């Protein structure tokens, strides 16, 4: 495997399966009385979060601690960015303390790539701008595999603000790599140009959901109304919201997913979010196991870079 996990493109299909298999083993650790293994003992992992995020950061932190790593959380306030310390300087300062791994979340696409050029530590992308969120796609795939025999050949519908979603990009790369048929849907104002070239079909929400095995909802942000992407949340819900009625057109054993946090009544109806097809809470639970797998697989030996 490559030194860093910046994008799903860094993983081959085989490597993705390896992560999922390892995550299965990691999941069991969470069921033990002592939820800890000594694997990353003595390793230092820095969580460098430029964007506030309770869910992802907690998930990584628990994963790191379960592997006995020493974790260090740096929550960069917007003000210190304004005070002028560049990402490059922060990175070099952290690097000077020789962490083994850095988990970074940042609001600029490509921030993790910049970090990777500066730091020798292994870099894990926990979300960079609009670009990617690889561990989310991996835990989504893990969740799907718990309910479906295989990802290959599945019809997956992804609905929502495609333009601004890093979860979309990572999921599209992963699902197409593993042979799923991905249909994406959203208001035309929120469909990224050229997205069909990534191997997905752009469809109406009804065409996307019809006979789907998996329906994945993406968050809609209030701010998008300011950008004139759509006129109101109410209209969005009417045209694209995942209601029980819409879901009924999917396969009878469909699973409903959402990376969270959810806007109930905007992209998804409460009955659906809490309903029998929803696996949204499982996604959260699986996040720890998948992140443990990624940390373990990336941690490797000291001389790995030279050999790779």
């Amino acid at each position, binding site marked *: 495997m490559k030194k860093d996990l910046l994008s799903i493109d860094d993983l081959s299909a085989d490597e993705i399966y390896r992560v999922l298999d390892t995550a299965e083993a990691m999941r069991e650790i969470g069921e033990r009385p002592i939820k800890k293994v000594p694997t990353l003992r003595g390793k230092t992992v820095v969580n460098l979060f430029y964007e506030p995020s309770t869910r992802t950061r907690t998930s990584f932190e628990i994963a790191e601690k379960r592997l006995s790593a020493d974790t260090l959380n740096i929550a960069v306030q917007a003000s210190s960015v304004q005070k002028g310390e*560049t*990402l*490059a300087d922060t990175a070099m300062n952290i690097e000077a303390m020789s962490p083994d791994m850095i988990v970074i979340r*940042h*609001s*600029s*696409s*490509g*921030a993790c*790539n*910049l970090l990777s*050029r500066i730091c020798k530590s292994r870099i894990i992308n926990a979300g*960079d*701008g*609009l*670009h*990617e969120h690889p561990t989310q796609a991996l835990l989504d795939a893990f969740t799907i595999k718990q309910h479906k025999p295989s990802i290959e050949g599945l019809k997956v519908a992804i609905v929502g603000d495609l333009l601004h979603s*890093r979860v979309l*990009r990572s999921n599209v790369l992963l699902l197409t790599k593993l042979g799923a048929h991905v249909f994406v849907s959203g208001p035309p104002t929120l469909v*990224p*140009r*050229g*997205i069909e*070239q*990534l191997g997905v079909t752009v469809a109406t929400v009804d065409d996307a959901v019809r006979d789907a095995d998996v329906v994945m909802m993406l968050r809609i942000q209030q701010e998008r109304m300011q*950008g004139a992407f759509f006129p109101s949340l109410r209209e969005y819900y009417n045209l694209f919201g995942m209601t029980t009625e819409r879901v009924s057109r999917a396969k009878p054993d469909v699973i409903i997913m959402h990376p969270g946090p959810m806007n109930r009544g905007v992209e998804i109806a409460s009955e659906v979010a809490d309903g029998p097809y929803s696996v949204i809470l499982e996604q959260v639970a699986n996040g720890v196991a998948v992140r443990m797998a990624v940390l373990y697989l990336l941690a490797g030996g000291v001389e790995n870079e030279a050999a790779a």
Partner: protein
Amino acid sequence: MKRLLKGGRVVDPANGRDGVFDILIDGDRIAKVGVNLQAEEGTVVVSMPSGLVITPGLIDMHVHLREPGQEHKETVATGVLSAVTGGFTAVACMPNTSPVNDNAGVTQFILKKAADANLARVYPIGAVSIGQKGDQMAELGELKEAGCVAVTDDGHPVRTALLMRRALEYTRMFDMPVIEHCEDPTLKGDGVAHEGMVASKLGLRGIPGEAESIMAQRDIALAEMTGGRVHIAHMSARQTLDAVRYGKSRGANVTCEVAPHHFILTDALLAAPVPYDTNTKMNPPLREAADRDAMLQGIVDGSVDVIATDHAPHHYDEKHVEFDRAPFGITGLETCVPLCLDRLVHSGLISFSRLIELLSVNPARILRLPGGSITEGAPADLTILAPDLHVKVEAKAMKSKSKNTPFDGWELRGGVAATIVGGRTVYNNAAVNLAI
């Protein structure tokens, strides 16, 4: 002091020349151009080795010299040194300095700095509006008198159609073109890359080609309406070129320029080999292959009038940040000639004559400058090209203060042997070692 350049190949399309000619320079003027000229007593004779090409001095009509106000990026002195190293005998510099060049004071300051440096000629371009804010027209007459050769609000389009109309009408008095940075600000939004598959994949906000072409259409229509002259700066989108062709066909007074990066590179460079390399970030952005190919086509078929670099130096620290935060722009003065020779002439797309039209004849004509030809009595501004010189682009070694270029490490065929301004050799490439 008289110098006779003997037996060199001279490409001078304005005078219909492409062949072996002798050039006699007397002081700062061209004294005579002919065949088998005899050298008088006291004339220094330079036997031109074969393989070199003598052309009228190259003129870059789109350069940011950053002085006054941003001297950490570049100064007039370092800028003109970079220019002559790149083979340019003259540059026209943009007014988006700090303070903006919207008055005679700043214009004179720039001209004084250029005179002190005494290398390439500097022709300032003034602002259309005060502070380039797009509200009130600057005193264009004063700017012209102080030495400006054109006006622009470059960095932005002229903010309103009304102001653009007025500027086009008003500049008719001075026979100055309005140079326009074509961009609809609302369509550009907070975009940082060309809106297309690459930006979508990399999660970068996009700037569609139409943001440029829609504004170009506005300006060309206004030029046709007013009879004024508009020059489209740094054209990048195929739709803009279509608009230019249409405007020209209708008799509008429109000219256009393309920078080398827009006819060589595409947005694929943002993804690989170095993803999010900020040296691929400029405005207008690198676009898709269809746009790049359209620019090449325009260069070949004559729709494109000028090649200008949009030399935009930025300090390393400013570029060594996340892609979103980096300023737009790359340097261009020292990479232009090798790129043009390698990618346009040696590739067989255009002739030397056409290249000189793009790099000298047309810029001189559009800005009404002395230059663009090798004519008796005219200033002795010459560029001596070494078309077969092997050039390896080395950002570290560049004379510009800034090293922000995506071409670092490129190996190209073609370079500059020497640059002569007003009869004086201001640059002599040690790799060619011409005794000039």
